């Protein structure tokens, strides 16, 4: 495929950011294999996949936003919002009368609303030139509030097997949401490496003025990144609701922005933009998840776990810096 580039150069230039993450992953796996009871079981894989999927999905969206040099603090709030809307729909009269239509709408409409949140963030950042942290802080504060206003603050519980498939279904014995994350990852990878949109995305993160002066549709691409990020967050919100058979607007997606950002960065995203390692984001999410799992399964107290998590994040990012230099 690439005659101009010799193999060693290719190895040296492209995936070296992965090594830090992979080293961390291997270390975690080895540690668990030795110290965590019953770690080497299929069920462990199952549990971890089902839990990591939401982080991974949000982290991939976050990676796109970070690639433009931005950041999205509102993902947790968007999860709550999307998650709050879904039960409202299939629990409504319409949803009761036409269950299939209800479920379909309950998936499509929340994602659409999440998309609108993305448009809001994107327009704030790309058109009004508000700095991303602040632009997305607005929905971070009020998005969850809107979700709670919609549901009057109440927890909505339901039992709807077809909707719950999102969170509890299995394909080939593994959780549906894990496959979903994988499919999204492949799709996004394709978009980033193969399409003009992806090329512009990276160009904008690399040098926005140059991208603009070369005819890049800067605003459209940036807004697009925020929209994808928000839609993926919305999807994660739906998954959480589906697993729990309940929508809790106050809690759904709480602190997700921190996990997602950490996952993206551990996976090799550069906060200044210009890089979109999608599979890195998944790797980062898996590491974050495994850390959580390891600490929990070994009975480490919550407060100590926080410190351990801090140290691991620093180490994982540091190893990458090290590799780079």
């Amino acid at each position: 495929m690439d005659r101009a580039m010799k193999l060693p150069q290719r190895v040296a230039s492209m995936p070296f950011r992965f090594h830090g993450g992979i080293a961390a992953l291997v270390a975690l796996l080895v540690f668990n294999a030795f110290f965590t009871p019953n770690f080497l079981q299929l069920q462990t894989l199952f549990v971890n996949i089902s839990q990591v999927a939401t982080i991974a999905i949000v982290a991939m969206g976050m990676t796109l936003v970070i690639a433009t040099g931005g950041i999205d603090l509102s993902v947790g709030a968007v999860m709550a919002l999307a998650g709050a809307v879904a039960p409202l729909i299939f629990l409504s009269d319409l949803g009761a009368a036409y269950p299939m239509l209800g479920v379909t709408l309950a998936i499509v409409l929340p994602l659409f609303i999440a998309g609108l949140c993305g448009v809001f963030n994107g327009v704030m950042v790309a058109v009004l030139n508000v700095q991303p942290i602040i632009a997305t802080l607005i929905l971070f504060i009020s998005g969850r509030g809107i979700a709670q206003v919609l549901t009057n603050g109440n927890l909505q519980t339901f039992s709807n097997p077809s909707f719950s498939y999102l969170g509890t279904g299995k394909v080939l014995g593994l959780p549906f949401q894990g496959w979903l994350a994988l499919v999204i990852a492949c799709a996004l990878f394709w978009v980033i490496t193969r399409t003009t949109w992806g090329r512009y995305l990276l160009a904008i993160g690399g040098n926005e003025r140059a991208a603009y002066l070369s005819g890049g549709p800067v605003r459209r691409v940036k807004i697009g990144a925020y929209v994808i990020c928000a839609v993926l967050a919305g999807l994660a919100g739906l998954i959480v609701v589906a697993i729990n058979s309940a929508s809790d607007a106050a809690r759904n997606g709480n602190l997700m922005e921190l996990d997602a950002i950490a996952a993206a960065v551990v996976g090799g995203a550069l906060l200044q933009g210009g890089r979109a390692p999608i599979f890195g984001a998944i790797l980062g999410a898996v590491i974050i998840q495994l850390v959580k799992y390891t600490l929990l399964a070994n009975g480490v107290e919550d407060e100590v776990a926080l410190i351990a998590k801090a140290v691991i994040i620093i180490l994982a990012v540091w190893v990458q810096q090290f590799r780079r230099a």
Partner: protein
Amino acid sequence: MNALVSMSGIEKSFAGVPALSQASLKIAPGEVHALIGQNGAGKSTMIKVLTGVYDRDAGDVHLADVPSRISTPREAQESGIATIYQELNLVPLRSVTENIIMGYEPKRFGFLVDWREGNRRAREVLARFGIDIDVTEPLGNFSTAIQQLVAIARAVSLDAKLVIMDEPTSSLDASEVEVLFGVVRELKKQGVSVLYVSHFLDELFQICDRVTTMRDGRTVSTRNVQDTTKLEMIADMLGRNKDEIAAGGLTDFAGAKAKKGDIVLRVDSVSTGPRLMHFDLTLHRGEIVGLGGLLGSGRTEAARALFGVDGARSGAIELHGAAGQPSGPGDAIANGVGFLTEDRKAEGIIPDMSVRENMTLALLPKLASRGQIDFAREREIVQAFIDDLGIKAAHMDQPIRELSGGNQQKVLLARWLATQPDILILDEPTRGVDVGAKREIQSFIRSYVEKGFGVVLISSEFEELVEGADRIVVMHEGRSVKELTNPGVTENILVRALAHHEGGAGSWTEQ
């Protein structure tokens, strides 16, 4: 002779690629020493090794016969070396005063910055360059030329034993260059040494005592300027025979003439703001129209208007005989306009992207079907340009930041040639480019025009305009004020046309 600075056997490589190998340099006290070489020869790297920006891999550096302990720019300054780096090392958001006195602020009670005194000092050093501006204004409010002079003023004000200037004149016009030379001579009189890097070889004869030439990271020669010729220097730089070069001439514009075709662009009294008022221009196929003017005369603004970056408030632009101002760069490109910007770093390259991706950025819409990039075609096109323009890169997937300035410039030129625009606007296409690359770029421009496309050429080098352009539109304070038609234009005529409209050339007042 005791050398003020003596560097020998310097080795430095980036990610395994050598930038300097066995390089050496000796600067005597009180001399003006020139350092020349092609793009990527290692001049800037040499300076950065000396001033502690980079650690050297091997080699000795002695300051006044004592081994140098400089490992940061700060320590260099403290050892009496003041440097104006090639890429402007100033902070545009901060005031002019701060940019000059930063790190050496006058204090009251030993710790409170005395702004009144600081402003006075800033005004004082700027006055040496004939600049009278509001020094409390953010630096970014001023033109590149002023910023360049501020950087020089800062270096000069540091009371150094050695002042290093890496291409200080690349964005200065003739009169400002004169002012700078005056300052350099004054420094020399005070016994201060100057290391002077430039691609304008003529300048060297005016101020320099000795010249060191570098090629491919090595030092090839050090000569007395009086005892050498321009041709000899070029021969050293290129590593070729003098006579071979003598046959060629210095620009590659002269002689060739294309057939003038239909009008592709007509600009009628366009204004975009205070810096571009009532600008007129016509461009035919097969023609190079030059925009001449002093710095700040609005040439870049004119280009931005044509490219749809700045919206026109009044006036009309006609492309291919159809009225319509491009709504933005994307639209302009779709309508057959290309624009090579003057600021390579800020507006041109995407440093972390590869040569290939940088080169095809403007071509993407044409390279893709339904959003999907055709990689085979992309590689084919990129390879063709790499071969045609002789771009020196390890491979097309090398990040562009690893290329030398001249090669980066060629990649950017290729970015626009690839879109085959009917109207190609080139803003300072050879700025900071060495003689060899410059000739090559010029010859590409010429051959492009000969294919029947139109080019608008903005250049601060009179030679380039006079020899390259078929017509020269002279600009002054945002207006097109005069048109000169080749053949028959000489540098003198051009200078007179400029001076005619410029009251006291070289004096700058606030905005």
